[in-house]
């Protein structure tokens, strides 16, 4: 064993303390978020997931700008054509500007695309479906819709859950008990059936009680998942209320608002972020599911659920249109997988109880 360094550790009782301070005093403490970020960066799977999702997100945002064929233009006389590599079918000047009613911004973007690319559009890189619509374009636009709906619905469940759960946790006492009883009761019901019921009732009417049909759809999906969020947030708030560092803060004279913002919110936020990342894939699944049943997004608008419907309806034992099933599966599967991986990694990264990480006062 090497002899100890120069510090006289055997002198006075305080010497060990001074030695320790000399050695460790220059280290900086790090917050929960910086720790989590470092950890996340080192996780290879999470890195891949983040890059992939960023790519998907960028493509979705820029969809109107991309020189893709129309996702809506039908050519029913043609059979579904197989995918063709870019060098075989390098695209053509055949752009047909057909869409469902687009927002003003999207229309401008499409206009910009026409200025950039004239009438050129990509060839059937992923093939076309039974109605002659280009699959690549439908996947890109469909992804845009699905992701948008998923984000909006997830945010809905987030807001509902955080408000309800936070309130229940903060109020405590009988208010909390009643609120949680309601949640427990709703939890027991298979909510999906309620949602299907409601959506079926709304049917094909354009609006219900002044609210647009799609908004109802969004709210319905959001309503599916707020229960878990509410429970989790309430649990977190309850445990934080009693946490030692809150007591310390109060003993130091911090007012309730300060406690809420500087101490509680950051800790609740961690849990909320993880839950959000794990909720989005579930929401996407539900959207696809409901659209598949004909209760969600309606043609001519396209979403991944509807693409799956087309694929299955076109399935026949005579001609195997494998691209209609494989590419949508890859698209849906990879995005959902990436989201799940990211969510799991986030949860591990933000967990203050894992070894080597300190709780966060």
């Amino acid at each position, binding site marked *: *064993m*090497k002899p*100890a360094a120069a510090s006289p550790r*055997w002198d006075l*009782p305080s010497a060990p303390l001074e030695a320790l301070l000399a050695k460790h005093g220059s280290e900086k403490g790090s917050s929960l978020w910086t720790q989590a970020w470092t950890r996340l960066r080192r996780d290879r799977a999470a890195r891949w997931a983040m890059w992939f999702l960023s790519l998907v997100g960028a493509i979705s945002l820029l969809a109107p700008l991309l020189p893709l064929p129309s996702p809506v233009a039908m050519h029913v006389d043609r059979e579904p054509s197989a995918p063709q590599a870019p060098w075989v079918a390098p695209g053509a000047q055949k752009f047909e500007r057909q869409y469902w009613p687009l927002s003003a911004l999207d229309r401008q973007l499409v206009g910009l695309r026409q200025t950039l690319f004239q009438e050129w559009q990509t060839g059937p890189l992923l093939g076309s479906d039974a109605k002659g619509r280009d699959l690549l374009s439908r996947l890109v636009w469909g992804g845009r819709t699905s992701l948008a709906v998923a984000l909006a619905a997830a945010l809905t469940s987030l807001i509902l859950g955080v408000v309800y759960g936070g309130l229940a946790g903060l109020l405590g006492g009988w208010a909390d008990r009643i609120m949680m009883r309601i949640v427990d009761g709703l939890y027991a019901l298979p909510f999906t059936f309620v949602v299907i019921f409601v959506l079926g009732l709304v049917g094909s009417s354009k609006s219900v009680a002044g609210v647009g049909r799609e908004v109802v759809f969004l709210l319905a999906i959001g309503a599916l998942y707020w229960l878990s969020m509410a429970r989790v947030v309430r649990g977190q708030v309850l445990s934080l209320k009693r946490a030692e560092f809150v007591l310390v803060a109060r003993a130091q004279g911090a007012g309730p608002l300060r406690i809420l913002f500087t101490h509680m919110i950051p800790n609740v936020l961690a849990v909320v972020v993880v839950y959000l990342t794990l909720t989005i894939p579930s929401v996407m699944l539900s959207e696809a599911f409901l659209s598949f049943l004909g209760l969600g997004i309606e043609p001519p608008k396209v979403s991944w659920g509807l693409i799956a419907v087309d694929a299955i309806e076109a399935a026949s034992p005579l001609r195997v249109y494998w691209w209609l099933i494989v590419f949508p599966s890859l698209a849906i599967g990879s995005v959902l997988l990436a989201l799940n991986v990211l969510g799991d990694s986030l949860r591990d990264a933000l967990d203050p109880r894992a*070894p*080597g990480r300190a709780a966060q006062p």
Partner: protein
Amino acid sequence: MKVLEVKNLRVRFDTPRGRLQAIDEFSLELEAGQTVALVGESGSGKSVAGQAILGLIPRPPGVIETGEVIFGGQNLLVAPAEQLRRVRGKQIAIVFQDPLSALHPLLPIGLQMSEVLEVHEGLSRREARRRCARALGEVGLSDPEQRLDAYPHELSGGMRQRALIAMALLCNPKVLIADEPTTALDVTVQVQILDLLRRLQEQHGTAILFVSHDLGLVARIADRVQVMYAGRVVEVADAPDLYRRPMHPYTLGLLASVPKLSRARELRLLPIPGAPPDPLEPLSGCAFAPRCTFVQKRCVEERPPLAAIARNVSDVVLVGGRRSACFERERVGRTVELPGSLPAGRQDAR
């Protein structure tokens, strides 16, 4: 007759924060029917030593660096898995600290006990049950037949520990390792368990390795005591000798810090200043030096070996082997003689 011998055991743990030397140069000799106590505070390595004997240290992150555990003519540390399995529970048994977590919460006590007999002695369930009921009666549980069908959470702490002891002794093992068996129990129950262990030892001739931090308890049961500090053995002596005349500053400090009712008015409690060293930082010199009141320059530079004590130290008659890891042991030994340190009713020499 030596029944278990440990030679120079070194165990370390490789953790994300560094290498932790849990025990260093640990040796032990256990004779049939004898009780040896392993005393030390938390982190001294006493539990690790006890569990290492049966190969219960999780291998990552634990690493057995060197050493031998000689039992029945073989070294248990390198014995094939199947042989080790046959020794465990049958020839060497261990009783753990917290009986509630040591027992399976979902299985009735009877099943947890009878499986030992079914596996090791090939008994049928019914025969095993009868033996188990008898064993439960032996440890002082009323209604043993009923208890067999009880679940651990339905018994009190003391009853659970008695059941664990009964379970350990089912196959009449030669050695019983008691790893802080009373720490999780009430004070009144602690003494009962101790007396139970002593009675069973007399009946079955089991050798006991008693691991504890409580010097008071150890005094009631141990024939020999090994004091551990920072993973090393610092003093070995027969119990009466240790309590009357400690020859290591740490032992001295421990004894002085234990409150005794009989001397409450005479002595103040003397805690040992400072704290044990960080196990992640290897030390040169004596591990206790930073806190020692007898410390000399030599103590910091050189590590004192656990050396036998020459027979011509003062006028104390030494019985059996006595060792101390301190350069200043004679000075320590001359400092204090603690009269009447052992509880009444104990034999001073065996």
